């Protein structure tokens, strides 16, 4: 896919630079001339939208850090100070907090798009793995960021999530004290979470570079899942996709701005407006909406499995639900990439989506009655999809005939 550059330095300065740091050549190759399948639909614009989201989070985050105080006595008040006193702080804080939600909304769409169109399949396994790695880093970053306002949900989220490590046999408790920097979640915890919350986005940015690098070696997948065969199948990235992505970003910013300007707290939990107290737990601890599916899996395991107690069991399934994503390229045995040409996969795919939404709902529901039973069923199905449905489908499913080329699928057979 890496075609030879058509860049010829015009001015003397460009020529001088090109021989020392060919950054203009690089930009032209990867951001402008890069041959991109001409049939990408709007689900593909979320890549660019995510880059925008990361940019928004870093810019607003760096500014918020200029006003925030990472100390248990002052953290809660400093966030209120930002929202009430700092010039434009209300807006900047809202964009950062709402931005986290929008970032996750976009990343879920991006991931589910990849799962539908088989974007994880050869030769894009590394691209997928790096993507899952970014997702894990995002979860860690979002969690630590959520702790910083030091409200009731923040502190108890920190308590519950760090407690996960106590489930590890033998080293669990010393490890927990190491992670918290004390016997309970306290000032050392808040301090280090702030430090890491500031650091990790730059690590994410670095992995994003690798993710795009791994994308630009084999090139983009596309809705047909058929490989690019010749130059008629592609268009240059600029202006075709730069414009399309820009349009997608504008559309995405409409709900984003609505939340940030009109309902900045609607995606959060009201209990986070109470300062953290280590002696009282809110009656109903719920994480932010984007963690609910995994939270539902964590608490679905309320029984012992052989010698593994319920706590460790929950942690294993919780971790497993994310780790399993790394293995997706090898669990799906089908030779056909795109779900469009896989009649049975399509049904199971949507069943998986519905099941995931159900897990989201169950993660917010109280841990009692029918919700407990449903959580267990939905958790079981989550794993069955990866471990049974996908491997079996690859063997028994008869895919529909694939178009011979992207051009053919776009223009129809008669014009091909």
């Amino acid at each position, binding site marked *: 896919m890496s075609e030879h550059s058509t860049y010829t330095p015009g001015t003397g300065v460009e020529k001088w630079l090109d021989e020392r740091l060919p950054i203009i050549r690089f930009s032209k190759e990867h951001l402008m001339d890069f041959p991109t399948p001409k049939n990408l639909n709007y689900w593909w614009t979320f890549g660019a939208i995510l880059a925008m989201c990361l940019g928004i989070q870093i810019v607003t985050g760096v500014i918020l850090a200029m006003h925030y105080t990472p100390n248990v006595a002052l953290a809660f008040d400093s966030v209120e100070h930002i929202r009430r006193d700092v010039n434009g702080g209300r807006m900047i804080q809202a964009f950062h907090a709402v931005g986290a939600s929008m970032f996750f909304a976009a990343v879920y769409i991006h991931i589910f798009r990849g799962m539908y169109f088989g974007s994880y399949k050869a030769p894009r396994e590394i691209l997928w793995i790096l993507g899952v790695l970014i997702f894990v880093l995002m979860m860690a970053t979002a969690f630590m960021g959520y702790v910083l306002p030091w409200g009731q949900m923040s502190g108890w989220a920190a*308590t519950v999530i760090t407690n996960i490590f106590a489930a590890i046999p033998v080293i669990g408790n010393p490890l927990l*004290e190491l992670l918290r920097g004390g016997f309970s*979640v306290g000032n050392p915890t808040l301090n280090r979470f702030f430090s890491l919350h500031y650091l990790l986005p730059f690590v994410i940015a670095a992995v994003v570079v690798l993710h795009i690098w791994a994308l630009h070696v084999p090139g983009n997948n596309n809705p047909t899942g058929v490989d690019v065969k010749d130059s008629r199948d592609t268009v240059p990235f600029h202006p075709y996709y730069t414009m399309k992505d820009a349009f997608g970003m504008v559309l995405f910013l409409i709900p984003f701005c609505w939340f940030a300007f009109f309902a900045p707290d609607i995606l959060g939990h009201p209990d986070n407006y109470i300062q953290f107290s280590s*002696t009282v737990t809110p009656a*109903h*601890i719920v994480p932010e909406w984007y963690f609910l599916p995994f939270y539902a899996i964590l608490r679905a395991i*309320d029984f012992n499995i052989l010698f593994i*107690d*319920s*706590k460790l069991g929950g942690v294993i399934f919780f971790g497993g639900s994310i780790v399993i994503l790394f293995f997706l390229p090898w669990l799906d045995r089908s030779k056909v990439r795109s779900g469009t040409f896989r009649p049975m996969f399509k049904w199971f795919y949507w069943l998986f989506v519905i099941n995931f939404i159900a897990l989201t709902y169950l993660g917010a529901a109280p841990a009692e009655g029918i919700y407990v039973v449903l959580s267990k069923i939905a958790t079981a199905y989550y794993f069955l999809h990866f471990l049974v449905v996908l491997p079996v489908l690859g063997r028994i499913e008869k895919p529909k005939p694939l178009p011979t080329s992207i051009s053919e699928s776009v223009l129809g057979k008669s014009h091909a």
Partner: protein
Amino acid sequence: MATQAQHSTTRRDFLFVATGSVAAVGAAATIWPLINQLNPDASTLALASIEFNLAGIEVGQSVTIIWRGLPVFVRHRTQKEIDEAKAVPLSELKDPATDEERTKPGHEDWLIMIANCTHLGCVPIGEAGDFDGWFCPCHGSHYDSAGRIRKGPAPLNLVLPPYEFLSDTLVQIG
């Protein structure tokens, strides 16, 4: 010739391994302080022991105090709660412990426990749940009147801090 080549290779290998080992030990020694700074610091450890006066806590009353930043339940149990706890057969318990093991001899009416649910660390609500003890609403763990886990996802009984009675009304925790 062959012997000579072998000889020099062996000598070079030895130097490589020796250098590598020293480097590995040096790296580990350098990294350790960087990890160890995460452990509880001196000011945190300084809070490891407290004294607490029990006088003034009525029968049937609970208080929550802070020890090492952790909430600790101090409950003055009623006779009914003590009898209930003693009546439970060990075979019914997920984490078997007798009521005697949960209290100090001669002070059965005092139950002193770290107040974090053994599942994920929430603070359970007192005088609630199906067993006349504590209930953690987060994930639905029920503890009985001796703080033993009876139902729900928590794997263990509420943890007892190390403590001793200095007098009938004075307790040292930690």
